[in-house]
Structure formats: structure tokens, C-alpha cells
């Protein structure tokens, strides 16, 4: 109850799959609390079936998204940044609740997430220039290598940095044309679902990003072993879970981005490693002649 005597309308936090906001098919939820331990929300606790539905949605979205022009993908990522900026106050409030940081610091973290998206948006039509090549083969052939998206990427988002960390692992995956299924921070999933509302209003096709909230240790192994997932980012896994997932990922030879050693500084310059980790190189040959 506010001072004016009006009861606030709370938000129901659900999953984000295929552009829709379903509850977990399992009917499960879990309590999310603030850094002080106060009740914030009952978040959906995604199940194996939800994870599989999310992979199906991501696979379905892949041809359209990877086939879109780089210019188009760049504009959509920039559009996500615009929408996020517009909700700055909401994200700042959620981050202050989740991490117990000051309002000013929370605002800076939201700003950094916006800037990160803008930075990655610009990569869409430039990564080919730095990761492609015209190869001077010893013969009468045209020979060109270009980077292409790997496919469906499972992303275990960092447990810390629930917004900046999340944006920093999702943006490099999708900007090149991959689609993804993301397991959000287990402890602080609410900014992720609010981000889903941003994604849903940014012209991003449904299914390009799918967000699952719930138990990381339950969801990550199913994605690591899923035969229609092409790559997995294990950033948010602890050491033991990461090793188990890497082993499962071998079954269909997923590309694996291992969690970096030590604590990650999400405010640092990200470099291009997260982009190139989920790119394939395709080389096309053709004879020259008249």
C-alpha cells in the first residue's frame, strides 16, 4: 500500500519462449527475494519440457534470423538498446532490489547494458570484414571465407550481473545470426524477464532469444545434452557443473565456451571472443576462366 492508499499492481514474471510469455508447463515456481531477503516475486521454474520447447522455437527462428541482412540485425539490436533506455528507471529499480546497490549505481549498470547493446549492434556488418578472407590459393580459383552463425546456442548466463552480464552474453550470440536459449541468473531472474519485454517490443523475431528462469543445475545439463543445440556458453556454471556440461556437449560435438577462470569484470571492453566463439567459417571455391 502506497502513501496515497493505492495498492500497487504487481507483475507476473513468466518465461519467454518463441516470442510468447508462457508459465512453466510444469506449473512450478520459486521465490525470488531481494538482496535483503524480502519477497520480490514467484518466478517460473522452467522444466525439461520448457527447455525443449525453447530449443524448438530457437531452431524455427534460425533460418529467418540468420538469413536477415546484417544491416537489419544491427538495427534490431540498436532498437533493443533504445527500448532498454526507455525503461532505464524500471531496470535500475530491479537491479537495486536484486543486488542491493545504490540507486545511482543501479542506473549506471542499466546504462552500461544499453551501451553494450549499441556496441554489439555495430558488429553485425563488420565481423565479416575482420573474420572473413579472400584466400590467394595457388591455382585458377576464386576462394572466399566468410563467418556464419553456428546455429542454436544454449547460454547459461552469469549468476552475477543480472542485466549487464545477461546482455553481454546474449548480444554477441544473436548479432551474427545465431538464435539462443538462455538460462538466466537463478538468484536474480527478474531483470531478465523485464528484458524479455524489451525484446518483444524491439522487432526481434520471436524465438531468436528464449529465456528460461529456474534452477541452473537442472536446466543446463538438458541443454548441454540436447542434440539440436549446436553450441553452449557455460559462463554461468560453477566449475563442477561446467565440466559435466562440457562432457555432455561432446555427444553432438557442440562448440563449448568454457567459463573464464576467475571473476569477470563485465564493465571491461568485451573484445570479439564472444562473437567468434559462435561462428563457423565457410569457404567457397569456384574456378576462374573464360
Amino acid at each position: 500500500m502506497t502513501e496515497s492508499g493505492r495498492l500497487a499492481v504487481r507483475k507476473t514474471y513468466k518465461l519467454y519462449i518463441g516470442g510468447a510469455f508462457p508459465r512453466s508447463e510444469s506449473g512450478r515456481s520459486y521465490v525470488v527475494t531481494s538482496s535483503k531477503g524480502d519477497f520480490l516475486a514467484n518466478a517460473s521454474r522452467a522444466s525439461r519440457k520448457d527447455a525443449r520447447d525453447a530449443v524448438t522455437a530457437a531452431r524455427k527462428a534460425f533460418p529467418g534470423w540468420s538469413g536477415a541482412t546484417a544491416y537489419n540485425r544491427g538495427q534490431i539490436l540498436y532498437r533493443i538498446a533504445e527500448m532498454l533506455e526507455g525503461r532505464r528507471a524500471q531496470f535500475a529499480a530491479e537491479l537495486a532490489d536484486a543486488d542491493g546497490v545504490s540507486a545511482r549505481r543501479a542506473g549506471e549498470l542499466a546504462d552500461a547494458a544499453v551501451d553494450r547493446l549499441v556496441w554489439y549492434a555495430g558488429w553485425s556488418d563488420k565481423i565479416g570484414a575482420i573474420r572473413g578472407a579472400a584466400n590467394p590459393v595457388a591455382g585458377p580459383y576464386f576462394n572466399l571465407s566468410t563467418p556464419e552463425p553456428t546455429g542454436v546456442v544454449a547460454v547459461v548466463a552469469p549468476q552475477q550481473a543480472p542485466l549487464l552480464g545477461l546482455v553481454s552474453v546474449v548480444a554477441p550470440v544473436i548479432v551474427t545470426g545465431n538464435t539462443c536459449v538462455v538460462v538466466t541468473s537463478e538468484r536474480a531472474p527478474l531483470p531478465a524477464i523485464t528484458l524479455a519485454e524489451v525484446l518483444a517490443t524491439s522487432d526481434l523475431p520471436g524465438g531468436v532469444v528464449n529465456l528460461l528462469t529456474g534452477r541452473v543445475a537442472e536446466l543446463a545439463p538438458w541443454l548441454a545434452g540436447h542434440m539440436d543445440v549446436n553450441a553452449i556458453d557455460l559462463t554461468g556454471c560453477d566449475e563442477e557443473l561446467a565440466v559435466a556440461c562440457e562432457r555432455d556437449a561432446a555427444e553432438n560435438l557442440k562448440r563449448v565456451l568454457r567459463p573464464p577462470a576467475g571473476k569477470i569484470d563485465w564493465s571491461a571492453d568485451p573484445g570479439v571472443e564472444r562473437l567468434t566463439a559462435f561462428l563457423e567459417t565457410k569457404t567457397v571455391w569456384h574456378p576462374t576462366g573464360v
Partner: protein
Amino acid sequence: MFEYAPAPESRDVVDIRPSYGLFVNGEWVDSPGGEREKTVNPASEEVLAEFTMATDADVDRAVTAARAAYDTVWSRMPGRERAKYLFRIARIIQERARELAVLESLDNGKPIRESRDVDLPLVAAHFFYHAGWADKLEYAGFGPAPRPLGVAAQVIPWNFPLLMLAWKIAPALACGNTVVLKPAETTPLTALAFAEICRQADLPPGVVNIVTGAGATGRALVEHPGVRKVAFTGSTEVGRQIARSVAGTRKKLTLELGGKAANIVYEDAALDQAVEGIVNGIFFNQGHVCCAGSRLLVQESIEGELLDALKRRLATLRLGDPLDKNTDIGAINSAAQLAKIRELSEAGEQEGAERWSPSCPIPDKGYWFPPTLFTGVAQSHRIAREEIFGPVLSVLTFRTPAEAVEKANNTPFGLSAGVWTEKGSRILWTADRLRAGVVWANTFNRFDPTSPFGGYRESGYGREGGRHGLEAYLDV
């Protein structure tokens, strides 16, 4: 057709020792506990030499030597000096090319025409190309001072023994790593000859170590804790095991595995050129090629015409003595591989595909399989799904470009693909949609050290060749 007089290449140029030890720290060493195995000429079943099955202790000794060479010599050497060693090696390979080609054909069974004109020139080119990178790595796009990783464990297959060695060792050394390499157990001889080349080049001891053996030796090598990098070329099944065993170790891993490439022929293709490309795609090196065009996807409207032309061409292929300069199809590398090809071909017949081979005399001794094609193949047939790794072509048809792409991508593999059409926009449209690391348009099975090679999906990860290939051997 034509009568050919025998035109055998002389084997006097090679000098095979009766027995080989291991090459560790620049010396030939005997294994205290290692058994001996024989390597045979698959075209005659004649024993060529004995070699050592390296034990865990031998592998440990080799990794220790490689680590010491890395710490004390190779990682500290200026790139321009490393470069000159690699240029030296490239030159020695060129000087001894004929000898190495004959040795390769003897041990592997591939026609001398291929070992002489394809394998060896590419081996030399690979060292020459990577030599030039050794002092230019700061320009390779991996940051201002990319560092090497340490000791690289490299396990290579029997289909292109010396070429696969070059693909592994040249970039590893150029980037400043030292290596322990295990050649395949049916084709150890050219790797052992390469050890001698390292000595002729005065390569510092321990920079290159060669341990021979089978699966157990390979496992000991990739699982050795002193190894920082694992590179494997071979079957998808073994690749999976390696990926599993490397999990949690933070060793850098690149895998170049199996394939089931589609070779798509549209109705407007230049038919004679397409036929040559199809033949080169699947019968080059007896089909022992991971990127072989083993699934022919032909547009329905030209199926009859293309198959007639293809059968006419297959009837002219000459199978026999690998050392004969007129031979097109050599011997299958081993009895085990021959059994696998037979098993899958029988499955093809049992599942309802129609089998055809030209009349083709088969030598009495050795391991041989005639060029074979299957028509009426369905996507569900084993011969359309599994890698046969032999001279067996499965023919499927399609009606529309979209169907061709759908069928081409209907495989867990993604190493290579072919497209034949005279229409440029259709080539690019098709190439865009093929989920494969190498797409050959109006050509097939071309390789070059400047051109990155490697697969999508279950064909493995990482690239070999070009600027891209350096990443596998740098701490980036």
C-alpha cells in the same frame, strides 16, 4: 578402350628400415615395454617394416621432451628464426618429394599419381606457407602479441598420412608450440621419414616428437596432463571420445572429423565437367577422404543422362598397382577398412538400393574394392547416412533447389559440399544455405594452405589452413 603398358614408378628411391623406434628429443629411442607391429603394403600384403607401439611411459617421455624444448628453446626463439626452420623443412620435402611420394603409396596404397601430384606438393606448400607466418603473428588479427600454447598432442589418420602431418605440425611450429604427433597404425612410415627430415633440418631436439602406436597410444597422448593443445583428425566417434576426455581440462581442442558430403548437380550443369567432378569427388584416394562427395544429388530431369555419362567414365578407371603411373584407383588401406566398406555396401543392397560397378579386374593379393555406385537410394538408407570412407557413391535425386538444400543438409555432418550449375546466382544461393565448412562450386576436392578447411556440426570444430588455422595454436 585403350591398352596400357605397365609404367611403374621405381621403388628404389626409398630406403625402408626393417624396424623403427620412436623419435623423441631428436633421437631414435627404443621403447622398454612397447610391442612391435608390422606395417604392410595394402596392395600386396607385403610387410614393409616393424614399428613400435608406444606405451604410456613412452608418451610421457615424449611430452616431457616437448615441454623442455618449448620452455628452453622454441617458445623463446624469435619468429624469424622459427620461420627459417620451417622454410628449410619445406625445401627438404621438395628435394625428397619423389622418395616420399613412393613411400606414401607403398604404405597407404594410394596411386602414385595422387601422392606425387597432390599430396607431396601440398605438404611442401603447407610448410612454406606457415613458415611465413612465424614472424608475422602480430598481424594475424589475434592481438598485438599472441602467445603459443605449449605442447600440442596431434593424432592423425591414415588417408593422407604426410599431408595430415603437415596440416598439424606446420601451424603448431609456426606459432611457437612443440609437438608430439602420433601417425595412424597402418601408415607410420612417412611420419618416421619426416623425423629424419627434422634431423636434416637441424631442428632443435624435442620440438617434434613422433610416437607410433594405435588407439591406446593416442589416448595416452591426448589425456597427458602436460599437453596444452589437442588436435585430432579422424572418425567422429573417436572425436566424441576425445571431446569427452578433454572436458574440464582447459586443453584447447580442434577436431576434423567425418563427413557425408552432398554433391548437387543442377540440370543446367556442364555435364562432362560435372562427371569429372563427381569422379574426383568420390573416387579420389579410393574415397578415403573425409570431405568426399559421397552423396550425389542429381536433378531428376537429367538423372538418366548423367548416370549414363558417369557409368561410361567409371568404365575407364584403372584399378591396380598404386606405383603404376596410369593407376586411378589404388588399394584400400587395410583389411579392416575393406570389411567396413563391404559391410555398408551389403547394407545398401539389403535396404533396396541398386548396386553397379564397372567390370574391373581385381588383383589376387591385397585389399581392393571396385568403384561402385548405388542408385535408388533413400535418405533413410545407411549408405546415405553413414560415412563409408571408400569408393562408393550413393545417388539421390531432387526436383527443386529447395529440396536439394534440404536433402544436402539432412545429415549430422557438415564438412563439405559441391554445387554444379552454370548459373552464378544459383551457386551463391545454394552455397549460402549449405551447412558445410567448404563448398566447392563447379569443382571438388581442392585444397590449399591459404584456404581454411574444417566442418560444421558433427564434422568437428576449428579450421586448418589460412589465417583462421592459426587460432588453434595460439593462446587467444
